[in-house]
């Protein structure tokens, strides 16, 4: 079940624009995550697909069928809410069968068929014995699974999830989202997941749609987003980022900080910012460098704080023998941005630099 959104815009009372000319294509079978900070418009977009909130202008198609004038109850999309929204006065089994129970008599399956479907779903969500329990008795993770089963009971092929794991604690979150991905693959669903947790999105989705202020900033898979982020915001949103302002001149990026090595690049000249992940930075020994100190350790990685004169930055690398200062940072893997826009030509790490630079450039550690 594919989803096509064209130029969707939504205003709210007070004139605020919560969706600004958003266009998105989700092909059949894809697992897409809508990510972004609070207020980015991700939930609004999801609800617009479901038909819960109207749009001011624009076009939504599900499976090639225009959704204008079609109320939510006729769209047959499965929706899972952040707070599960289970019916507290119904048992788990009746919650799950709700979508089937409310079908008009003509199209409703028999009681036996409904019960069989419920049993099947209970097995699928791995809660076969909790059919007669009430939601109050369940843990958060269990309730979320019931919410999912309820959404799937009517056999929708499009599944929309609005921050479904937000209220769960970390261990449970990881388990449930893995299981969700498996379910998606198993049932051949098209899934759109809203989350503000980029780690979760990267873990579970094929593609991330990064939103900010009601607009889609970038729409790509995790690797592409990492290698070529469309804006500094995208890069910062998806992971820890170190920023090095500087200037490009004569084919070299010259950082403003001391103790950071320049590197060659053929992008246009001018003020430029270099953004890089902490683990992409390497250390070079240099007599005129700054001090380095190990400040932490996370699994196989260690964190080192390097003093750059006026400020100090933390980098990561696999655990090695303690570093010896003084050191200088090598940031050739950085993505470059001018005026907030990415400028991407080949960056040449210092090792490829012409020999004329040899006296400028230090030896690697």
């Amino acid at each position, binding site marked *: 079940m594919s989803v096509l959104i064209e130029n969707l815009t939504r205003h709210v009372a007070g004139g605020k624009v919560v969706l600004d000319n958003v266009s998105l294509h989700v092909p059949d079978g894809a697992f897409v995550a809508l990510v972004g900070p609070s207020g980015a418009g991700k939930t609004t977009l999801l609800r617009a697909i479901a*038909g819960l*909130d109207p*749009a*001011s202008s624009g076009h939504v198609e599900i499976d090639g069928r225009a*959704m204008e*004038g079609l*109320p*939510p109850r006729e769209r047959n999309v499965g929706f899972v809410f952040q707070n599960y929204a289970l019916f507290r006065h119904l048992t788990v089994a009746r919650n799950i069968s709700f979508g089937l129970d409310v079908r008009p008599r003509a199209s409703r399956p028999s009681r036996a068929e409904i019960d069989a479907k419920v049993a099947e779903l209970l097995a699928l969500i791995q809660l076969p014995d909790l059919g007669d329990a009430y939601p109050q008795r369940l843990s958060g993770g269990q309730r979320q699974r019931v919410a999912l089963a309820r959404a799937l009971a009517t056999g929708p092929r499009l599944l929309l999830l609005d921050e479904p794991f937000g209220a769960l604690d970390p261990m449970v979150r990881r388990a449930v989202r893995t299981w969700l991905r498996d379910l998606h693959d198993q049932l051949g669903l098209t899934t759109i997941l809203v989350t503000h947790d980029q780690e979760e999105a990267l873990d579970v989705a094929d593609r991330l749609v990064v939103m900010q202020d009601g607009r889609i900033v970038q729409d790509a898979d995790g690797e592409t987003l990492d290698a070529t982020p469309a804006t500094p915001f995208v890069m910062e949103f998806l992971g820890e980022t170190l920023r090095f302002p500087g200037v490009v001149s004569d084919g070299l990026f010259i950082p403003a900080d001391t103790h950071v090595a320049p590197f060659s690049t053929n992008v246009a000249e001018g003020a430029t910012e270099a953004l890089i992940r902490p683990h992409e930075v390497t250390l070079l020994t240099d007599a005129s460098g700054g001090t380095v100190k190990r400040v932490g350790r996370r699994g196989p990685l260690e964190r080192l704080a390097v003093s750059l004169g006026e400020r100090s930055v933390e980098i990561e690398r696999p655990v090695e023998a303690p570093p010896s200062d003084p050191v200088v940072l090598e940031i050739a893997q950085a993505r470059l941005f001018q005026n907030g826009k990415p400028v991407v030509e080949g960056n040449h790490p210092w090792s490829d630099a012409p020999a004329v630079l040899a006296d400028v450039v230090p030896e690697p550690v």
Partner: protein
Amino acid sequence: MTSSSPLTLTRRTLFGAAAACAALAAIGRGRKASAAQALLNVSYDPTRELYADINRAFAAQWASTHGGSALAVRTSNGGSGAQARSVLEGSPADVVTLGLAYDVDMLAAHGLLATNWQTRLPHNSTPFTSTIVFLTRKGNPKGIHGWADLVRDGVQVVTPNPKTSGGARWNYLAAWGWALRQPGGTEDTARAYLKSLFAHVPVLDAGARGATNSFVQRGLGDVLLAWEDEALLAARDLGPDKFDIVVPDLTILAEPPVALVDKNVDAHGTREAAQAYLEFLYTPEAQKIGAKHYFRPVDPTAAAESASIFPAVKTFDIASLGGWTAVQKKHFASSGVFDQIYSK
């Protein structure tokens, strides 16, 4: 544009609301106060016991003269003015038996009955008369013997509100008439007297029965200005050892009239029965019942027979004060004398 709220009201909601309104209207067609087999007598306050007996007697008589067909008479009681107003607003009275002619005239003025109503039955359409007397506690501890004593220091007088109660208007006019007839009595002295009198009144009930209750059951006040029938009922039946009747030297002749409400009896188809009911009030049987309940019969025979029940009184009547229309306008209309003297 995608659809709006997910929980749209269907046409069924509006249909349900319309159905409810229709149901309400249907109920309206149901119960009405009068059917062909029932009469409604809207009466003033002190007549509950009187009409309970009269209605029973009349029903028996009607059944015997109409081949056993049942005719129920229901009575509603309240302050005369308030009851008249409710008939005006639509209370489906077949007959009205109110405390004073003015209240019936008011209904005639609005077209509910013929303006010559008072000539259609004997004695100015008044089958029973009464008067205004005082009721005091046993032994008359405050020594109240006449109108002048009512305005002495420390005396609390109980009377209903002239705006709503017919009895209260008779009380007021009795006091007014007495004041006028005193040596040197003028409008000004009468006004002063009434102003002083109402200053001695702790509370104004809506109807005569309410005032009686306040005095008799709740023990309020030292003296009750009351219909004679109320006073006699209280003194003789309710509390023989508790109250004394005091008859002032001069008092007013009260003539509470009865009338057929033409508009309603024609609408209900009850003219014959209502007319029979009113005529029944003048029969010896009814006149005796009246006397039993301390209402003075107009029929000479019955009056003679029951003379011993009633104390002797010297009275003036409403005509000597100018008639009800003039009196109502002068005293009880907005900004009339009562409004001027009573400021609480």
